[in-house]
């Protein structure tokens, strides 16, 4: 196990910069998730830590050791790939023991390590099978087995659950998390799925266009996003945004005046974006008027698409909403959960 430190890490392909100086400290044993939309550079960053991509500038340190110019094999890392990358011509046992065999481990030692990993991952009955004879979930487990068998300093996961169906993804999410809790190995995990990020991470790094937007614990990011991008990316259904102006009486959005928490006077009359998560609306006769556009009963809750003034927003209510589209209802935003962002640049104002 080891800490990982990225200092001003940059990556360019010719004249095109794809990673613009990333700083990141990952503590020993921490589970860090790199999350962001497609093309944000999260996989590139992970591959730079792995040594599969060269580093244009900055430093990558693993366990205090500068690894910029080291081959992947010398970085003491193990990686799980999106499509598992199991060797098709080797059995599960050979796949898992391959790196140990190549590093000159004794047969007895390799067998013991493979058995240990197979027991942890429930792969013992599958050791003589070939990858083509396994299901998606089993292949995923073998890929993880291949990673843990070596007891590396750092695990790297590159969107490992993307090829699984939704149900299996939830199961494997839990397995990876419990594996981490058991082994306590420093882990860097890349995903574009913010639910995976929220449920698995000790710390989330949100990336956009090769830049870090925010680093923090999952609930910190959820409760206090640093900017409009993070606010919109984290959370499902996504946060609602209304454009308007901060006034002394409230937030003047298009066709509606919304209540505001106390805000410093310097932001008065400033153009801004009003952010509120769907679950922070409450049905309240004293609230602001909204026109129902669509009602989606989910069983445990009801999602309602509604118009606040001229803006279409989503509300999630514990109550069952039975009104039909076109009906007017009254909803109250939770004043403690209002997020205000600058109209220019999207930085948080409150």
């Amino acid at each position: 196990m080891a800490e990982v430190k990225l200092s001003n890490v940059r990556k360019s392909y010719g004249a095109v910069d794809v990673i613009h100086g990333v700083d990141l400290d990952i503590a020993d044993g921490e589970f860090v998730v790199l999350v962001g939309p497609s093309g944000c550079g999260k996989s590139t960053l992970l591959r730079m830590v792995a040594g599969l991509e060269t580093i244009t500038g900055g430093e990558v340190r693993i366990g205090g050791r500068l690894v910029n110019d080291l081959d992947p094999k010398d970085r003491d890392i193990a990686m799980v790939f999106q499509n598992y990358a199991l060797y098709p011509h080797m059995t599960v046992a050979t796949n898992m023991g391959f790196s140990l065999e190549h590093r000159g481990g004794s047969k007895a030692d390799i067998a013991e390590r493979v058995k240990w990993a197979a027991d942890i991952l429930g792969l013992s009955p599958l050791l003589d099978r070939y990858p083509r004879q396994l299901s998606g979930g089993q292949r995923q487990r073998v890929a993880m087995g291949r990673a843990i068998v070596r007891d590396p300093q750092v695990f790297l996961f590159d969107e490992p659950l993307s090829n699984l169906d939704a149900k299996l993804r939830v199961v494997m999410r839990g397995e990876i998390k419990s594996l981490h809790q058991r082994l306590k190995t420093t882990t860097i995990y890349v995903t574009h799925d913010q639910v995976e990020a929220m449920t698995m991470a000790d710390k989330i790094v949100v990336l956009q266009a090769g830049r870090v937007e925010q680093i923090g614990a999952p609930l910190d990011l959820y409760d206090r996003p640093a900017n409009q991008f993070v606010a919109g990316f984290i959370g499902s259904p996504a946060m609602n945004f209304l454009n308007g102006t901060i006034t002394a009486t409230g937030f003047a959005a298009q066709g509606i005046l919304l209540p505001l928490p106390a805000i410093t006077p310097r932001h008065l009359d400033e153009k801004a974006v009003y952010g509120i998560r769907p679950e922070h609306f409450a049905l309240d006769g004293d609230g602001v008027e909204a026109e129902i556009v669509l009602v989606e009963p989910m069983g445990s809750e009801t999602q309602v698409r509604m118009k606040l003034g001229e803006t279409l927003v989503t509300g999630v209510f514990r109550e069952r909403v039975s009104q039909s589209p076109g009906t007017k209802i009254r909803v109250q935003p939770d004043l403690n959960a209002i997020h205000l962002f600058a109209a220019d640049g999207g930085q948080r104002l409150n």
Partner: protein
Amino acid sequence: MKADLSPRTKMFLYGLMCVLLIPFVFPTWWMVTSSVKPISDIFAFPPQLVPQTYDWTTYSKVFELQPFVTQYWNSAYIAALVTAGTMLVSSMAGYAFARIRFPFADAIFMVVLLGLLIPSEVTIVPLFQMFLKAGMVNTHWPLVLVPIFGAPSVFATFVMRQFFISLPVELEEAARVDGLGRFKIFTRIALPLAKPALASVAIFTFLHSWNLYLEPVVFLSSADKFTLPQALTQYTDAYGGPMWNIQLAAATLTALPVLIIFIIAQKQFVEGLAHTGLKG
């Protein structure tokens, strides 16, 4: 064939296939049956599809008139050497062109491919002069070296490159993380997975070498050095006229290993073609 075809359509398709088979099967049938006919029966009219009389002595004459066993061995070992050499060269070159980034790789590959456009007849005279200077005329060296470093190998390199390009890059990256260097990745990961492509290269190359005619005629002059295609032309009477039945008996013996290899390796052959995206 799809299971949901009607019996009538199936019958039609099978019938069509039988008709299409005729141009492929008939020459082989004619060769085998004529090899045991007296010469006069070969040209009899109407043609005899099934021999009226069987003359098996043609097969013993094949061995009496020429050092056929030696010529058989010549063809076999030259084809084996060429096949092994081409597999080695083409797999390494194909892998390099597919996976190793080096300056002008694509341009160099295009230049290499141009080798396929030059007919062997064009290069045979300069090659003869070259091998003459090297003292290799009337030896088997030209028949081994020219295909390994010539057009057959270029084609094989193309086949192997196409295969290696289709291998997921992640497999090699996983191997790099597992501690393998470039050469070990080639030998332990890429090459074992390339078996279908290697099999098709082996079959193509073996057949090419086995059937090679022009080069042996140019480079070899003594009967004990001849390969089979060249030896077939030597079964002539005192006036230079061909002894058809003996020649066809020798041709049958020559075609036999090729047929056996194809029957044994049919699956790999078809798989190899499918992998490379080429059509036969």
